């Protein structure tokens, strides 16, 4: 199990992950120059704002995967939680009863709550029905996609379902109502990124210095010992899944309040799973994940990345590349029993 907030991976793993990032930047650049048209305008004004806003979203998604991981759970429901947040946010956007000025804050809160609820469902299914979180997570993700589409209606398109760049073209009503300046994106981005980094550091601090964090780490590292020494592992797992779900749900709701240029929709596979890539690229540590979110945010907003990702074949290759860090991160991140057993076990009560 990793130490809270600190990357315990060896130098080789860190270098390998840096190499992956380098390949991402250089590879997409080469492909864009070689055969694709560049879009120089993408480098213009809102670029900085885009980077910080996308990085904030990526970091929230990374935390959504990272928090349960410390308690020994593989939260592949992160995409379902993201979609739940997105759907609830979409409902609010469509609701004429909600004051446009209040839509933003309320949407984020409700999105986080919806994500948390989805996380609780996954943890509950694991504890009561012995359904592994990987299975329930993937099933919920598949089930929530049409639900998110249906709730979003014509007004918005769930960005995870498309890699089209033109999904969110309409100006947001609440922004117009508040007469906010064009620097809105940057302001939002800085605010949200600060919030995400603060949350990540707070989580790392709590893991190390609080009784709750001790129980989370013990539950993740050896659930048998945690139960035997009187810890309520079920409660710990519910808590971290709710927290992780809230982070993913918040990112889902966030998609509705951002301009199309900064939407995370460029991601080459279902968007919620970006959190998995961030966590693995960060080798399971909080600090590593912050760095990974910033690097990936910057890369996603490069004009050549946008262009390359618009080609499905390149998107698939990039998705595969981003999964590479999992190969060397996973065995180190999971408890003492090693990756395969930790992935397939369903209940901490089992003695394997």
């Amino acid at each position, binding site marked *: *199990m990793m130490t809270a907030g600190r990357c315990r991976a060896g130098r080789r793993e860190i270098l390998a992950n840096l190499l992956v990032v380098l390949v991402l930047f250089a590879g997409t650049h080469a492909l864009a120059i070689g055969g694709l048209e560049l879009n120089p305008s993408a480098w213009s004004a809102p670029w900085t704002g885009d980077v910080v806003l996308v990085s904030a979203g990526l970091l929230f998604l990374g935390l959504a995967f990272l928090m349960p991981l410390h308690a020994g759970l593989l939260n592949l429901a992160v995409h379902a939680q993201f979609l739940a947040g997105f759907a609830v946010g979409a409902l609010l956007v469509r609701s004429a009863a909600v004051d446009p000025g209040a839509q933003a804050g309320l949407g984020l809160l409700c999105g986080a709550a919806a994500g948390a609820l989805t996380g609780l469902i996954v943890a509950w299914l694991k504890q009561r029905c012995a359904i592994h979180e990987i299975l329930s997570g993937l099933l919920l993700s598949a089930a929530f996609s049409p639900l998110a589409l249906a709730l979003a209606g014509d007004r918005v398109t769930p960005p995870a379902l498309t890699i089209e760049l033109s999904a969110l073209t309409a100006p947001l009503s609440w922004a117009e109502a508040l007469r906010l300046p064009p620097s809105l994106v940057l302001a939002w981005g800085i605010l949200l990124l600060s919030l995400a980094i603060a949350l990540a550091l707070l989580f790392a601090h709590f893991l190390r*210095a*609080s*009784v*709750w964090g*001790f*129980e989370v*780490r*013990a539950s993740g*590292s*050896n659930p*048998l*010992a*945690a*139960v*035997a*020494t*009187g*810890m309520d592992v079920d409660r710990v797992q519910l808590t971290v899944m709710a927290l992780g779900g809230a982070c993913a749900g918040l990112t889902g709701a966030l998609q509705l309040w951002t301009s199309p240029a900064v939407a995370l929709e460029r991601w080459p596979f279902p968007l919620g799973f970006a959190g998995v890539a961030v966590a693995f690229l960060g080798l399971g540590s909080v600090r590593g994940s912050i760095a990974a979110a910033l690097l990936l945010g910057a890369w996603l907003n490069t004009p050549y990345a946008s262009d390359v990702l618009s080609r499905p074949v390149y998107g698939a290759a990039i998705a595969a590349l981003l999964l590479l860090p999992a190969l060397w991160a996973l065995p180190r991140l999971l*408890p*003492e029993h090693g990756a395969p057993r930790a992935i397939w076990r369903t209940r901490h009560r089992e*003695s394997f």
Partner: protein
Amino acid sequence: MGGKDAGLEIRGLSVADGDRWLVRDVSLSVSPGTLHMVLGERGAGKSALLEAAAGLRREAKGSVHYARAGDSVASSDNAAPRQRRLLAAFLPREIPAVSLSVAERLIVHRPPRVAGVALHAERGRTAARALASRVGVEALLDVPIEALRPLERRLAELAALIAQEPAALLLDEPTSDLGPHEARQFLTTVRSLAEAEKIPVLFTTTWPRDAYPDAMAVTILWRGADPATVSTKECTEAALVQRWTGGIGIRRAPSGPHTPGDTLLRVEGIVMEGRGRETSLAGIEFEVKSGEVLAVVGAPADGLNLLHDALLGNRVPGRGSIHFLGKEIMRAPRRLRVESGMTFVNPPIARDQSVPEFTVEENLILGQTHVPPFARRGSLRYESIRGNAVRALQDFDLPDITPRTRFRELSLGARQRVLVAREVIHNPRLLVARSPAQGLSLTEQEYVRRTLILQCERGSGLLWLTEEPEEAMRVADRLAVLTAGRLVWIPVTETLTREAIIAEMSGAAA
């Protein structure tokens, strides 16, 4: 034991794990039809040696030679790991509890087929019955492996290995979860099979007694010292122990006379259904007083595991009562038991008492984070935690270990010392120890025993559950044998012998 006639010969074998030597320069030869025992504490390299011989692990140096009966060609060549996997049959220490029946398990390696496709059920059953009868489990053909008692499971696996017609049998600690009478029965069966099949058998153990009367020779492995091989014909069990331990005596040495005090634990009429073919508890009654050691000896499947589970709170008995300090705790969770002053020391290899990835100081507060001085208002107080660790490491003679050392980096003996320290440092009212010294070096065994008994002499009660008669005799003020789900009390006298206890235990198993 000449190399010329050997069915299995290991020459100068060394096995490394990274830059650490697991086994160095081991040479031995085993004649067909005989048993050769490898003796050593946990971590001495026994499993690594067997795994290398079985082709499951690569050796750094040395060679392994197998010869089938009547085959003189292969014996001169060093078998490659792939060849070894085909030639040798390896039985690991932990056998997975699968849901296959015994009959299915016995033929799974080579099932008789019809037209090469469908399973020939009748022939399969006949073959399984023939194999099972060789180890005495023919009555259990339809019982799932997971429901068998440990001895039956080992015997069934043994029969399955024989079905592969191996050139040698390699058994890794086959007696680790058996009572002494079961171990004897198992090794006798192995010997008769080896003689019938004319194959060599190499097995490992942590108990010198396993060598007698079936093994021809014993190779002793020590950490950081050259191995030695002795013949059991020329070396008695006492001499073997002397050679292995370097003459460390194992005697109970109480620090002074003590008088049992108040009753701490009272167990009355416990009835508990066994799992699978485990013996059920049929009305267990005893009490433990402060300042006394009550030892309960029994085979794990004869109810010892059930009794331990009932005391831990893992399973609730069907009938009866468990009172601790006058309060009924039979249905209380373990946390409440621990909070009221009952603590548990499990075998060193038990996975439910430590977090290997945590530091020593964190393991020392496991289960105590909700109380001062280690936590206040939800925050851990690391100065108290570190102070506690420093004191514990000093008191328990672990000067080379720092509070920040990762627990998994410690030797097995040091781990158990840390865990014993955690349990006794807060002066519990009652200690429930389940084979707390199992698999440790004899020095460490003695240390653990002495520490727990010392705590008992300070006024705690000590309930010692074990499958080893010798261990019980060393520590007990009162002694009971768990047999057929009931306790049989045996007076602890100077004339009490191990054989008397084993006879009582095996009477239960019959």
